[in-house]
C-alpha cells in the first residue's frame, strides 16, 4: 500500500524563524510529489515536484525532491503569522489514472 509520512506532526515557532517540513514516501509508480497548504477550507497548491535535485521556489517557500532517498522537504524562511496552517504532502501515482496519497500533515503555528 502506498504510504506518505510527514514530520513533524506539529511545529510551533516564532515569527521570523525558518522551518523545514519533511515528507517521505513509499509508492508504486511514482509520478509526482505535491505540497499543499490548508488553512480553513480547501488545500491550496504550493508546489509539484517530479525531478530530483531541482529546487522549486515561490517567495519565502522552497521545496526539493530526492527520488533516490524517497523524500522531500518544504522550507519556509522568515515565517509570518499568515504561514500558520496545515501543510500537506501528497504523492501522485499510476500514470493516467492519477490518485494522490496524502500524508497526515504538519500543523505549523507561528507565534507573533
Amino acid at each position, binding site marked *: 500500500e502506498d504510504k506518505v509520512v510527514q514530520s513533524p506532526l506539529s511545529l510551533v515557532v516564532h515569527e521570523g524563524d525558518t522551518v523545514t517540513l519533511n515528507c517521505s514516501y513509499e509508492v508504486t509508480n511514482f*509520478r*509526482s510529489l*505535491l505540497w499543499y497548504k*490548508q488553512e480553513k*477550507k*480547501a*488545500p*491550496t*497548491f504550493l508546489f*509539484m515536484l517530479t525531478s530530483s535535485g531541482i529546487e522549486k521556489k515561490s517567495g519565502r517557500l522552497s521545496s526539493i525532491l530526492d527520488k533516490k532517498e524517497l523524500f522531500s522537504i518544504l522550507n519556509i524562511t522568515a515565517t509570518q503569522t499568515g504561514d500558520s496552517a*496545515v501543510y*500537506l504532502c*501528497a504523492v*501522485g501515482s499510476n*500514470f*493516467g*489514472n*492519477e*490518485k*494522490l*496519497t*496524502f500524508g*497526515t*500533515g504538519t*500543523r505549523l503555528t507561528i507565534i507573533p
Partner: protein
Amino acid sequence: DTAVSQTPKYLVTQMGNDKSIKCEQNLGHDTMYWYKQDSKKFLKIMFSYNNKELIINETVPNRFSPKSPDKAHLNLHINSLELGDSAVYFCASSLLGLGYTFGSGTRLTVV
C-alpha cells in the same frame, strides 16, 4: 468563477438518513475525485472518475455511491448515514493527473 464547486458547504443530518453532495468543475478536466478528510486532517481518496468512468474505488462502504452524469459533474450519494461518516468531503479534479484542484469541501455532521 469557482473552478471546483461543491454543494452544500455544510450538512447536518440524523443517523439513518440518505444525503447527496454535488460537485461541478468548469476547468475542462477529465478526472474527478472524492476525498474524505477526518477530524485529524487526514485526506484519503474514496473514488475517482475519468470521463464518466469509475477508475478508483478505494475501500469504501457500499452505502457510498458516486455518480458522474458527465465529465464536469461528480455527485456522492450516501445511504443510511452513520456517526462515523462525519467528516469533510472534498471534491477535486485534474487533467491527465495534472493541475489538481480541490473544491472548498462539504462538512458533514451526522447526529
